[in-house]
């Protein structure tokens, strides 16, 4: 028997997920504008794979299929996976990544709300470990028409040098490491734009715009984006001021790679992230720190997925140690009693 309250706010998981999907649209639009419509193909592929996988698992688990598919959580996971992978990733790579996210990370742990790790980030990590070459091929902005992109996605010829380009993060890393060049010299390369990778500034700006929309609608709180941006930008700023020849500027770090997508859409995943206000700050700041470390000293061009997963591991501890004070109580709740 359901008791009071007899009234409810007009909210639902579906509505929440839907608003996040809407918030991704400016970033996707900028992506298409800058890099061509290939990403749309991958988004569609990923969506279909995710929904089919979700429906399959729900039928195997003998749970209502319609409700699970309608909550849009699988679609959101699919979009985040597709946006993390290169736009010209072959169809089977995208599909594998989505299946890892939905089948393994989400449903093996008990389905929506139960997974301790961010599904999209586990999928990304699995793919970059399994297929490092394919995962580092991003479309060159010029000279690659939609037909070529489609051919690449559907498994056509891959003459890598002609059709792909290293990202700014990648070329900065290899430039500094292998060639011993300075930041200034490397950033004269064709991959660099005004702030980050050429064209990517617009995509990053699109994600940031969508993030502000989510903040305004109360879907996410300020804690995670602010802490992530402050940690990544702050660290980058300190080292850039000390040695601008060997460290990228804060703006470069924030406008490159998946920084903005992470700040508003990845670290803010409620299921696998910290939940207390202080926990959220520590969680996102931790991700920012790890991203900066991996970008500067790690073996991978970007470190968001690893940062998020490493901090996912810390979430139970963070939540336990940062329980807020309860009304009228001097000490905090729970904790290490």
């Amino acid at each position, binding site marked *: 028997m*359901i008791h009071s309250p007899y*009234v409810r706010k007009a909210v639902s998981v579906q509505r929440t997920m839907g608003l996040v999907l809407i918030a991704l649209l400016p970033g996707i639009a900028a992506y298409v504008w800058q890099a061509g419509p290939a990403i749309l193909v991958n988004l569609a592929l990923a969506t279909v794979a995710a929904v089919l996988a979700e429906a399959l698992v729900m039928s195997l688990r003998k749970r209502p299929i319609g409700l699970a598919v309608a909550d849009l959580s699988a679609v959101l996971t699919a979009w985040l996976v597709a946006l993390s992978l290169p736009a010209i990733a072959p169809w089977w790579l995208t599909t594998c990544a989505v299946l890892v996210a939905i089948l393994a990370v989400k449903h093996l742990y008990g389905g929506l*709300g139960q997974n301790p790790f961010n599904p999209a980030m586990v999928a990304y990590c699995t793919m970059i470990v399994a297929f490092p070459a394919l995962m580092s091929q991003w479309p060159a902005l010029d000279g690659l028409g939609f037909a070529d992109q489609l051919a690449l996605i559907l498994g056509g010829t891959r003459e890598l040098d002609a059709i792909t380009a290293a990202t700014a993060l990648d070329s900065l890393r290899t430039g500094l490491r292998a060639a011993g060049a300075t930041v200034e010299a490397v950033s004269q390369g064709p991959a660099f734009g005004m702030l980050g990778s050429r064209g990517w500034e617009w995509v990053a700006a699109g994600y940031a715009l969508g993030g502000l929309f989510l903040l305004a609608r109360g879907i996410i709180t300020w804690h995670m984006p602010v802490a992530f941006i402050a940690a990544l930008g702050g660290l980058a700023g300190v080292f850039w001021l000390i040695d601008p020849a060997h460290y990228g500027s804060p703006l470069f770090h924030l406008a490159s790679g998946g920084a903005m997508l992470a700040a508003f859409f990845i670290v803010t995943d409620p299921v696998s992230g910290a939940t207390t206000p202080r926990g959220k700050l520590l969680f996102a700041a931790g991700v920012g720190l790890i991203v900066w470390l991996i970008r500067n000293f790690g073996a991978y061009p970007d470190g968001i997925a690893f940062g998020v997963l490493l901090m996912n591991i810390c979430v139970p501890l963070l939540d336990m140690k940062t329980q*807020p004070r309860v*009304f*009228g*109580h001097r000490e905090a709740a729970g904790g290490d009693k």
Partner: protein
Amino acid sequence: MIGRLFRFHGGIKPDAHKNESAGPAIQRAPLPRRLVVPLRQSPRATASCLVEVGQEVLKGERIGEPEGFLGTAVHAPTSGTVVDIARHPMAHPSGLDTECVVIEPDGEERWIEHAPFDYHTASREQALAWLRDCGIVGLGGATFPSHVKLGKGAGIETLILNGAECEPWITCDDRLMRERAADILAGATILRELIGARELVVGIEDNKPEAIAAMKEAAAASPHGVKVVAVPALYPAGGEKQLIRVLTGIEIPYGKLGGDYGVQCFNVGTAHAVYRAIAHGEPLISRIVTLTGNVDNAGNWEVLIGTPVQDLLPLARPRPDTDRTLLGGPMMGFALPRLDVPIVKGSNCLISASPRLFPPAPPEQPCIRCTECAKACPAELQPFELYWFGRSRNFGKAQEYHLFDCIECGCCSYVCPAHIPLVDYFRFAKSEIWAREREKAAADQARDRFEFRNFRQEREKAEKAAKLAAKAAETRAKLAEGVAEAPAAEAAAAEDPKKALIAAALARAKAQKAEVRPQNTDNLSPETQAEIAGIEARRKALEAAAPPAATATTPNADAPAAASDTAATAPGAEPRS
């Protein structure tokens, strides 16, 4: 002094729906055919019946005598005849029964003699007793006896009058403030004097501008300096601890009362009832009830306590698609399991519900830890954590995370996008913990009883053993003294005829026993006799060597003496358990 307002964490803004019933003035509800007056008006105390079936009662006549520390008197709401005293279902989610006095009104409304109570000349104790005898309890819903709340008497800085009325739909306090502001403030002034508070503040949610205006006007006319403060309309601003927080900044934790922090809070309706009781000597026999929801004629009625809900509802003309009736607001009220239950002192609102107004909750979805509930919780809890702990029956952890600080306001359930009935999980967890604690208490009691029984048995055994040992020592002494003892015993017996009689009886019994003792030592051969003599000699030697047994506590300590008195000691030496 109140300088600024404070805010409490969380809170929600559900649709107020106050306009439906706030417009029309308070009307008197007609006399019902029968009044069912429960002798238990609050969950904490009951009253003992003072009337019999067939007795004529007058309006305001006491029919229930307060029982216990938290008891208050119960009165006949109108004149008439007591037709039944029996158990009747109550307005409670479970539909529990309680002892009720059923009165058939004679329609004449003849008052019992009543006179104002001069609380200035009376002692404080007398004034509090007067309120108890007038049946004054908190009308905000909790029905806590006012005289107990006033009992503190010292150390109260601020008296707060709660006119927030934050639950949607309910407007009974709003109308009361609009129409009887002066009486409310007169009652509040009495309360302030009785409790010794320095300042008096009235808190009203800012969605009741007419009530605020009326109260401000009355406050301006009052010589006692009353502050009327508009507080932001944010549910649950009318929760006592939330209102105290907003007005004074003081946070009162779970398990503490406002009085511990120098603040005391009374509902405006209570203040009005106090005024009627002191200034007119009228006991609490009616209250304002809001009838609203899916009805054509929403409004507020002055209703006699004991009026059955089914007699009241037609006044508001519920529409045909009404499927349930809620008692209280939609946030914390409950659906009445039946409609023949009476209005009691804590019943503030009846809402006719329809599927359109209160649609059934959508199916429950998995928690995605979005923390909306934590953002809304006025107790600053982490409801989703409590939910996980409650679900996994990890009640210890739930308590560690302050489950019992939950005031069950329903904010978390209201905002949950996954439509999880969080409050229900918390009610469940609380009741499970209570049940376990009761079980544990019962088990502890049983264990204590068992341990005490063992202890008692050990003690009795020891006492008996000591007694036997003493007796054995005595017997030994007697034997040693031999015949010489007899005259002494006779001399002692002479002192006390009763003792002499006992001694004589004992002697007779001994003699008898000696006679019936099997004489298997007769007609023995000389060899056997010699053998017996040998045995006897060895035994004597052993006895002489054995230590005296007087202090022994073991049951068989008397074994050496057994030879002389086997028959008497043997049964006592048997272990009893």
